[in-house]
């Protein structure tokens, strides 16, 4: 135990003295998460809008008055359809509205009017959301005239605050990446610096050194995690915590062990930090891709869905979202823990075996 602590302490010290690693850790757990949380917006924000009005002034102006900040920029008037289209082609305007000659007349007389909307749908999702928002705004003007009242409740995040989701997602990606990189680097640095032999010559069981090294990095990541959650998630973005934070840390621990297994394999095959970073890129992309972080797993191709069962990242991300947002009880979190522990045990064992050959 004393020796375990000695190695543990040494690795912490070595980490703290390595300016670049400390910088990366702090950057990843603060700025990186902050930028991801800030940068991506689900609700339309500041959408540039243009219009051409061939109809009367009254109704169109009433509609346009409802399209305002923060969702829309001030609608810009164009003289004819050609001009409006040109602006859309030049990407100056994203949404164009054309009020036909009969627009006002039809609305008043027949209670049925058609509104022409042109949209730059290059980014399909943004376009979709913008049009939806536009539709809702217009419908809300005539509230009560709709025959059915569809009441939509968004659970856990009623205002669709995407910062919550994005910052948490990024935090989880950061944990994924750093657990690979840091754990691999803690071994490879000894190879690079030529201290590998000295390490092996310690009259200590190889397993003890390996575990001490891995745990030291888990500790460092946990510190970063606390910083990221405290400062950015709770502090800046006010992410809710509907479950128990303790469960999250427990899940994180098992997850890092699973990633540690992969990291050990990477470390066994690389001789320099540069090689570690290259292998990490190759490994991390499929992992994140299979995690459901971007696309819901049930929207994937069936074979991919099957494959994702063995991705440790999947259990981690789903579990973490359940804890943070859905406030899932412990009993319902068990599948995530079970998945993480089983995969973690297998991966860590494999990594341990591979690395053990070098001891």
């Amino acid at each position, binding site marked *: 135990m004393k020796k375990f602590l000695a190695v543990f302490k040494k690795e912490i010290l070595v980490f703290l003295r390595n300016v*670049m690693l400390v910088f990366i850790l702090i950057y990843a757990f603060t700025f990186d998460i902050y930028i991801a949380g800030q940068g991506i917006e689900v609700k339309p924000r500041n959408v540039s809008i243009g219009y051409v009005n061939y109809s009367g002034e009254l109704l169109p102006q009433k509609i346009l008055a409802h399209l305002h900040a923060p969702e829309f920029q001030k609608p810009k008037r164009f003289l004819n359809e050609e001009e409006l289209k040109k602006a859309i082609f030049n990407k100056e305007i*994203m949404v164009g509205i054309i009020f036909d000659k009969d627009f006002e007349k039809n609305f008043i007389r027949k209670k049925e009017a058609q509104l022409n909307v042109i949209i730059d*749908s290059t*980014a399909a999702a943004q376009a*979709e959301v913008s049009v939806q928002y536009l539709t809702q705004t217009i419908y809300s003007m005539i509230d009560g005239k709709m025959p059915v009242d*569809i009441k939509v409740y968004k659970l856990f*995040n009623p205002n669709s605050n995407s910062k919550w*989701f994005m910052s948490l997602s990024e935090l989880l990606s950061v944990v994924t990446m750093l657990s690979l990189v840091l754990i691999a680097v803690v071994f490879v640095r000894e190879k690079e610096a030529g201290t590998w032999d000295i390490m092996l010559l310690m009259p200590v069981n190889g397993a003890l050194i390996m575990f001490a090294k891995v745990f030291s990095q888990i500790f460092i990541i946990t510190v970063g995690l606390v910083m990221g959650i405290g400062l950015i998630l709770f502090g800046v973005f006010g992410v809710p915590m509907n479950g128990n934070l303790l469960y999250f840390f427990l899940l994180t621990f098992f997850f890092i062990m699973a990633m540690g297994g992969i990291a050990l394999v990477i470390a066994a095959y690389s001789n320099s930090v540069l090689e570690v970073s290259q292998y990490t890129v190759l490994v991390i992309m499929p992992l994140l*891709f299979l995690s459901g972080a971007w696309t819901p797993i049930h*929207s994937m191709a069936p074979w991919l869905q099957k494959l994702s069962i063995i991705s440790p990242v999947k259990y981690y991300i789903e579990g973490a979202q359940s804890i943070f947002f859905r406030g899932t009880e412990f009993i319902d979190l068990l599948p995530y823990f079970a998945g993480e522990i089983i995969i973690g045990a297998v991966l860590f064992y494999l990594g341990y075996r591979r690395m053990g050959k070098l001891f």
Partner: protein
Amino acid sequence: MKLGVVKAYLKKEFIDLWRSKMIVMVYLIPMMVVILFGYGIRMEVTHSRTVIIDRDNTKMSQEIIRAFSTTKYFDTKVLNITDNEALRLIKQNKADLFIIIPHNFEKNLMHSRNAEIAVYIDGSFPLRATTLEGYVQGVFLNQLEKNGVKVPFKINQRNFFNESMRDENGIIPGLIGLTMLIAPAIIAALLIVKEKEAGTIFNFYSSPVSKIEFLIAKLTPPFILYSFNTFILFLIAVYIFKVPFKGSFLLYFLASEIYIVISIGIGLLVSIITSRQVTALVLTVLITVIPGFLYSGILMPISSMTGESYIEAHMFPVMYYNHLLYDAFLIAQGFNSPKNVEYFFILIFYAAALLFIGSLLLKKELK
């Protein structure tokens, strides 16, 4: 400039790229990024697990259930459970949403009384939730119209550029822009810093090889290799992801070539201030990924930006290239649009400026 010198250096670089397996990285990583993210980032939500609690049990409610189960967006299950049980399903992540059709729904609707439907969506992933909300409303409105219920406004939506509203059409060109910014910069920086780290840079410092010769020798390989990548990525986009290519290939090719030069120029600047490969790698990624994502138009249209982000977007070359890229794939105005011509020249300016600054700062001596 001595051609023989350049040729010898070039040959050495290519042999080294080949034997050090770096060439794999050159082609594998951009392809992986585009393919994985192309499949991976999907805003469209399909097969969302939907629970419908039908407490009305009428012809109308049956029809609504049928309407939901016939689209690819919903995988419906009709369950007779309480609200709380349904909530638990969501907490267990076994369902994405549930819809409650209340008792007397049909009756209320027929008698023009206020009929209400409650929809509960898991809002953990807001983008998914908002998308689902739209789908749900769409299905209902459609159903109502079929049943002759009048809607006061009809929105006639015309989509430009990406008529079928496919995610891939927007994302894949964006990813091409992103990889073309990051990857050549990394390779260019590594090729130079590698020599610094190993010590072989002395062969340049202490020999009559001139700065220009050295630069050409170092920057040409990534340029040529990534020029092939413009074709590979184009083929991936068009054949694997079926992104329409409406515009001019010439524009795409020329703009991409200039963009590669810009990226290489960034790599050159990084290589001047770093002396270790790892540092060069991290630094290049840091300074390219963030603006690459933010100003690509994948996350937010440039036209929606205000204040600093608007200025920043115009400062980074990313926006100009992406504009041309989208034009080549989806818009097809080509060089007829004055804006495209303007952006094209702005890119040329960036490329020239970066190379100029880089070659000024490169010193043929130890620090």
